[in-house]
C-alpha cells in the first residue's frame, strides 16, 4: 500500500489530500495548527457570518474546502494529525513530529511539503520594538479572535497590505496611514508584465475595488516611501519616521504593521539538502522542482503551494491537485474520472505566475531595507546588527554560514527564518556578487525546537 504524508493543511495541502483520498492511497495530513486552513484560512470553521463578511470573499471561499475535507476525515478516508510540530524530515521519507509533550515518527512513500510562506523580513531601525508586527500578524489576530488592532500604520507594499487595511476598516479600526514603498515608476514597469486573462482582470478589478474602499475611508496614503525608522515614545507608542518626495515626516501610532510580500518557507527543503534557485522577481530562494512539483534529486519529495513559489491561494489549490495527480501517475494509478488533466492544471497555474510577474514588479522590495542601515538589528533572535554582519564579511566570511560562526546571526530560535534573506542580500552587496552565489544558511534539524523530555517520550506507533 502506498502511503503519502502531506505537511501542512492550507489550500495546497487540503486540495492534495482531497484528490488523493479518491484513490486507494493512504493519506496522512500532519498539521501544526489545531484546525484545517493553514494561515490563509486560519480559524475559518469558527468564524461567524459577520466575521466572514469583514474578512472578505476570498477568505470565506476557504470554507468550502475545509468543510469538504473535514467530511472526508470524519469518514476515515484521510488521517488528520493536528497540533503536530514537525521537527525533522529525512530524504527517505521519514517524518518526525511532536505533539502534546510526546514525539512520534513514521515513514511514508511520498511526502508533499505544503508548509507555505513567511512574510519577507523588513529590517528597519526599531523593527524589533514591541508593537511592530507583520501585516499578516494583524490579519491572524482578526481571524483568531476577531481582534482588530487600533491606531495602526501599515508600512510596505503589495496586495496583502491593502487587504489587511480593508479588513481593519471593516472591523471598525481603520489604519491611521499607509506608508507604501512602491513608486509610480514601479507601477509602470509592472504594466509591461500584465496580460489581460480573465483571472488577471478579475484580480485587478478586486484590487481596484479595495483601493477605492480605502480611499473612501479617508486613510492617508503615502507612496514612494523610503528610509523608515521606528522609535519608542514615552507614551508607549511608536514614532515612525519616513521620507517621501524628498521630505522627512513622522507619524505616531500604537502599532506599525510591516509587509513587503511573502516568500517561500524553505526550512524543510533546506534541511533535506534540496537544491535551491534564486527567484529574481520575488527576490527569494525557492526549492528546485519540476513542473509537477517533484523536488530535484528525489523521487518521493514533492512541493505544493506557496512553499514552492508564491502564487497565492487559488494557485496553491491547483498545485495541490497537480502534485496529487502526479503522484497517482508516478505510482501507476489511473486518475479519478472527471479530473482536469495535469497539462491543463499546469496551464492554469501559469496564468497565476504571469499575474505574479506583474505584482512582483509593481511591488518589488526596496534596496533601502533589503540592505539595512548599519545600526539596524538584522538577526532579531541573537540581536546582531547589520554592521556586525558587514564587519564579518569584510573580515573574510565568504557566506552566511561563516557569518553565522563569526556573529551568531542565524543561530537563534527562529533559525534564520527572519534574517536569512537579509544576511544573504547584505553579504552579496558587500562582496559585490549576485545573491545566488552567496547562498543561504545551512539548515539542520531540529527545524523546530524539541526538548529532551519530548524526545524521550517517543511513540513509534501512531
Amino acid at each position, binding site marked *: 500500500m502506498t502511503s503519502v504524508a502531506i505537511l501542512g493543511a492550507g489550500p495546497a495541502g487540503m486540495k492534495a489530500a482531497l484528490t488523493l483520498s479518491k484513490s486507494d492511497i493512504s493519506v496522512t495530513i500532519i498539521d501544526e495548527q489545531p484546525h484545517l486552513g493553514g494561515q490563509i484560512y486560519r480559524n475559518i470553521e469558527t468564524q461567524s457570518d459577520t466575521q466572514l463578511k469583514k474578512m472578505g470573499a476570498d477568505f470565506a471561499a476557504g470554507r468550502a474546502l475545509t468543510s469538504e475535507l473535514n467530511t472526508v476525515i470524519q469518514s476515515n478516508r484521510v488521517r488528520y494529525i493536528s497540533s503536530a510540530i514537525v521537527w525533522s524530515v529525512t530524504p527517505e521519507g521519514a517524518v518526525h513530529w511532536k505533539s502534546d509533550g510526546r514525539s512520534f515518527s513514521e515513514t511514508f512513500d511520498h511526502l508533499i511539503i505544503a508548509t507555505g510562506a*513567511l512574510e519577507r523580513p523588513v529590517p528597519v531601525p526599531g523593527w524589533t520594538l*514591541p*508593537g511592530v508586527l507583520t501585516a499578516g500578524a494583524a490579519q491572524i*489576530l482578526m481571524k*483568531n479572535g476577531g481582534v482588530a488592532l487600533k491606531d495602526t500604520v501599515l508600512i510596505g507594499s503589495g496586495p496583502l497590505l491593502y487587504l489587511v487595511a480593508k479588513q481593519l476598516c471593516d472591523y471598525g479600526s481603520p489604519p491611521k496611514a499607509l506608508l507604501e514603498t512602491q513608486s509610480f515608476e514601479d507601477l509602470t514597469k509592472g504594466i509591461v508584465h500584465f496580460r489581460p486573462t480573465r483571472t488577471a482582470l478579475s484580480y485587478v478589478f478586486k484590487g481596484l475595488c479595495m483601493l477605492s474602499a480605502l480611499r473612501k475611508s479617508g486613510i492617508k496614503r503615502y507612496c514612494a516611501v523610503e528610509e523608515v525608522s521606528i522609535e519608542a515614545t514615552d507614551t508607549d507608542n511608536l514614532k515612525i519616521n519616513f521620507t517621501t518626495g524628498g521630505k522627512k515626516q513622522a507619524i505616531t501610532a500604537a502599532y506599525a504593521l510591516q509587509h513587503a510580500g511573502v516568500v517561500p518557507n524553505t526550512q524543510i527543503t533546506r534541511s533535506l539538502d534540496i537544491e535551491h534557485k534564486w527567484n529574481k522577481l520575488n527576490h527569494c530562494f525557492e526549492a528546485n522542482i519540476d513542473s509537477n512539483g517533484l523536488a530535484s534529486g528525489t523521487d518521493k519529495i514533492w512541493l505544493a503551494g506557496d512553499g514552492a513559489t508564491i502564487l497565492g491561494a487559488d494557485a496553491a489549490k491547483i498545485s495541490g491537485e497537480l502534485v496529487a495527480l502526479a503522484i497517482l501517475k508516478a505510482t501507476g494509478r489511473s486518475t479519478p474520472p472527471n479530473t482536469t488533466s495535469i497539462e491543463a492544471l499546469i496551464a492554469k497555474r501559469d496564468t497565476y505566475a504571469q499575474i505574479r510577474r506583474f505584482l512582483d514588479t509593481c511591488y518589488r522590495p526596496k534596496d533601502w531595507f533589503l540592505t539595512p542601515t548599519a545600526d539596524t538589528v538584522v538577526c532579531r533572535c541573537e540581536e546582531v546588527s547589520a554592521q556586525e554582519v558587514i564587519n564579518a564579511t569584510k573580515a573574510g566570511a565568504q557566506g552566511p554560514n561563516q557569518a553565522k560562526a563569526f556573529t551568531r546571526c542565524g543561530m537563534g530560535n*527562529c533559525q534564520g527564518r527572519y534574517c536569512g534573506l537579509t544576511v544573504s542580500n547584505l553579504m552579496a552587496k558587500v562582496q559585490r556578487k549576485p545573491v545566488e552565489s552567496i547562498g543561504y544558511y545551512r539548515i539542520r534539524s531540529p527545524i523546530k525546537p524539541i526538548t529532551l523530555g519530548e524526545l524521550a517520550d517517543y511513540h513509534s506507533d501512531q
Partner: protein
Amino acid sequence: MDDLTFSFNGRDIPFSDGMTVATALLQANIKTFRETQVLEKPRGAFCMMGACFDCLVIIDSKPNQQACQVIAALGMEVKSQTSRTEILENLK
C-alpha cells in the same frame, strides 16, 4: 457565560474560546511579552504564526512557550521571560 481569564504577570486577561495567549494579550493592548536574552530588550508578538519565536513566555512554569501558538485556557499562569540575570539572581 463565565468570564474566561488567565493571568499575565499577575494581571487578569480576558479571552474567548479558541484565542491564543498572544491574541488575548494584544486584545488587552499588551505589547511587551518578555525581555531578550542578549541585550535585555523588550519584545512581543511579531509574526503571530509560530515562526519568529519573539512571543516567548512562561506558561504554567514552562518557559519558551510561543504565546501565539498556545490556546488560552482558564486559570493559566503566564509570565514574562526575562534575561539571564534572573537565573543568576536565583543562584546567589
